């Protein structure tokens, strides 16, 4: 009996000593952050991930953004606070399903400090609740749906910011361009049920009507639809002068190819938005691409030219889509915020408090980025939007800028 008591007692003593020794090691810093801290031991990498569409029909969009981030990492020597940067991520497929899968996978990894993504607004709608609950800070280079940064909107989550413009801007620019510059009065719109397309065509339609134009039809297609004849016939019945379809590939390519082969639409103008700014659209549209218009951000300046030269050198081509500079800026903003809030200990251990990091990114002001002078609003809109209109010509990429504000 006394022997058993002795064994139990000695186990207690051993356990107490073990606990005491543990407490001793972490006692130099106690995390007081509301949503926790990431501790990076000396020599360990700082983990930043992408959640971009890097496979499938819209892969140019995501690969282009990823290239932008890789240039940013290379420009800053691949380190943050003398820790190497571990950069990897998941494909999001430009769909809610893809966003869900990538979000679930990434949210389970507690080493992740920040996420750069997503590309498509529908992905953000399903991945953001997961990222937000996991305590990440997320900066999107190309989500443009107004909902995501609208205060009080159920799709606005803490920890979400974007360097891309808000579609309230893009939709208005497109409507003004069509009404004032092209002088057209009758427009039809098509969306694909995605958050991005549905909201953007809504903003366009509202502004177009405010300017005095008429919307003859607001139709929708399925993102995987190939045969557009019924929707185009239905639109032709209203006799529009322009069809505005801010959707994605491949449905966008099928619309471009089939619109001219519909009775009544032989001379109609076609216009898309930034989701259809990529080299894939050139291929998907074939010869019918001639004259296809898109609204998209325009990035310019000496720094941007140097960036393009570096892009050419690292990836062997000119930028393949439009949101590379936005991704570059997203990385730079995150890096600056980490450097501002991280606690560096004498042995080189870096502690990043998550809520403080979010606050620091939200507090970004007058940040000199490639895409302009970035200042974030309390709901996460950081862009300095400058939207231009581009025109595609067969066999020529990138498309020509035909109008600037």
């Amino acid at each position: 009996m006394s022997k058993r008591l002795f064994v139990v007692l000695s186990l207690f003593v051993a356990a107490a000593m073990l606990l005491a020794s543990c407490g001793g090691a972490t006692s130099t810093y106690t995390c007081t952050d509301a949503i926790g801290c990431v501790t990076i031991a000396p020599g360990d990498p700082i983990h930043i991930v992408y959640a971009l569409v890097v496979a499938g029909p819209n892969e140019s969009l995501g690969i282009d953004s990823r290239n932008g981030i890789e240039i940013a990492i290379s420009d800053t020597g691949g380190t943050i606070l003398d820790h190497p940067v571990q950069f990897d991520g998941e494909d999001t497929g430009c769909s809610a399903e893809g966003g869900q899968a990538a979000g679930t996978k990434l949210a389970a990894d507690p080493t992740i400090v920040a996420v750069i993504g997503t590309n498509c607004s529908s992905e953000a709608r399903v991945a953001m609740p997961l990222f937000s609950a996991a305590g990440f800070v997320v900066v999107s280079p190309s989500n443009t749906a107004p909902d995501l940064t609208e205060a009080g909107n159920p799709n606005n989550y803490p920890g979400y910011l974007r360097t891309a413009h808000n579609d309230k801007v893009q939709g208005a620019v497109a409507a003004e361009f069509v009404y004032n510059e092209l002088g057209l009065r009758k427009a039809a719109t098509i969306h694909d049920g995605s958050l991005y397309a549905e909201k953007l065509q809504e903003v366009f339609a509202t502004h177009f009507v405010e300017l005095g134009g008429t919307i003859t039809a607001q139709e929708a297609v399925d993102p995987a639809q190939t045969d557009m004849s019924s929707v185009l016939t239905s639109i032709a019945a209203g006799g529009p002068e322009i069809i505005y379809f801010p959707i994605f590939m491949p449905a966008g390519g099928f619309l471009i190819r089939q619109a001219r082969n519909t009775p009544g639409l032989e001379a109609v103008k076609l216009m898309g938005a930034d989701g259809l700014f990529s080299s894939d659209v050139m291929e998907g549209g074939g010869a019918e691409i001639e004259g296809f218009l898109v609204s998209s951000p325009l990035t310019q300046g000496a720094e941007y030219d140097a960036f393009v030269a570096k892009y050419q050198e690292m990836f062997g081509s000119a930028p393949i889509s439009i949101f590379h500079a936005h991704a570059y800026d997203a990385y730079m903003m995150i890096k600056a915020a980490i450097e501002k809030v991280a606690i560096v200990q004498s042995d080189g251990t870096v502690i990043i408090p998550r809520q403080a990091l979010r606050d620091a990114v939200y507090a970004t002001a007058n940040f000199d980025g490639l895409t302009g002078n970035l200042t974030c609003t309390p709901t996460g809109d950081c862009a300095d939007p400058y939207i231009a209109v581009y025109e595609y010509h067969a066999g020529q990429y990138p498309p020509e800028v035909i109008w600037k504000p």
Partner: protein
Amino acid sequence: MFRTWRQRVTFSDIMVWIIGLAIGVVVVWGTISTIQSGKYSAESWFDLIVKGLALGGVYALIAMGYTLVYGILRMINFAHSEVFMSGPVTAVFLANALAASGFLNKQPLLSILAIALLSMLVSMTVAILVERIAYRPLRNAPRLVPLITAIGASFFLQYTFRGFYGSGFQAYPTIDALAGSWKIGTVQLYKTQAVVIMAAIVLMFLLYAIVMWSKLGKAMRAVSEDREAAALMGIDADKIIVFTFALGGAAAGIGGILYILLFPIAHFYMGFIPGLKAFTAAVLGGIGNVPGAFLGSMVLGLIESLGPNLFLDGLGIPNASQLKDALAFIILVFILIFRPSGILGERTAQTKA
């Protein structure tokens, strides 16, 4: 023993009839109100009909593979949609090479034939390989086993081709000779659609001739009737089954190129929806029946093309074109309620083999 009609008609029969009747009434009502509204011109209707027939022609060629294999093995070859996909996703490289060299627009006919031939060979090879590797070892297994294998083979092929050519899409070049339209009176007949319809009809007739009048076709029908008896008559059933798969594969490969003429973007996932539609068309026409597959495909193509504008528009349903797939399947339900074996199907199909 004779039973009164009260005993013969069950509750579920009545429910089915009510559902069928409701679908019929809604369709007729929608059609009448669309036509009364006069929203669409005669030219638009003509265009939709032509496009529907072209789509139907493509479905017919794919449906051949389902119906022939069903006729002979009593199994649904769900990997057939991938047999269809394998041709066009491979032939795109030849098409782009021909376009780059300028040959495509100098000799459009020769080029299209070469592309179709390559597509046909690839699809045929894939069909034969699937039969040899996935189905033959299971020839005498219970009927559910090859069905599950077919679904597995379908996924395997999809991701194999994704591995080969990547997850992005490949666009086919534009063929100048097929661009534009002929003007007949007030209507436009687009050249692409006209060529696809003609090619599909000629090919379907050719397939029908092979099945009905060639020696191999006769052997095929004999094996389909009774495999043991055919074997006793000196027909090598294994060889005939391989021939059936090859014929279905070749039809799917050419159908793939016709599909590409209509929708010139190829990717590894492109087979799924057309495959499902062609299967539906085969069931609609009466599975196991060649003219039935043709008729079912044309009906399905027309419903899909005309349906959203003809019935749904009149009912005031927004974004009708998004519902065209749903519509196609609702009509399938409607037809199967009244003719469970399909339009030209035989009611005794189950008792064979």
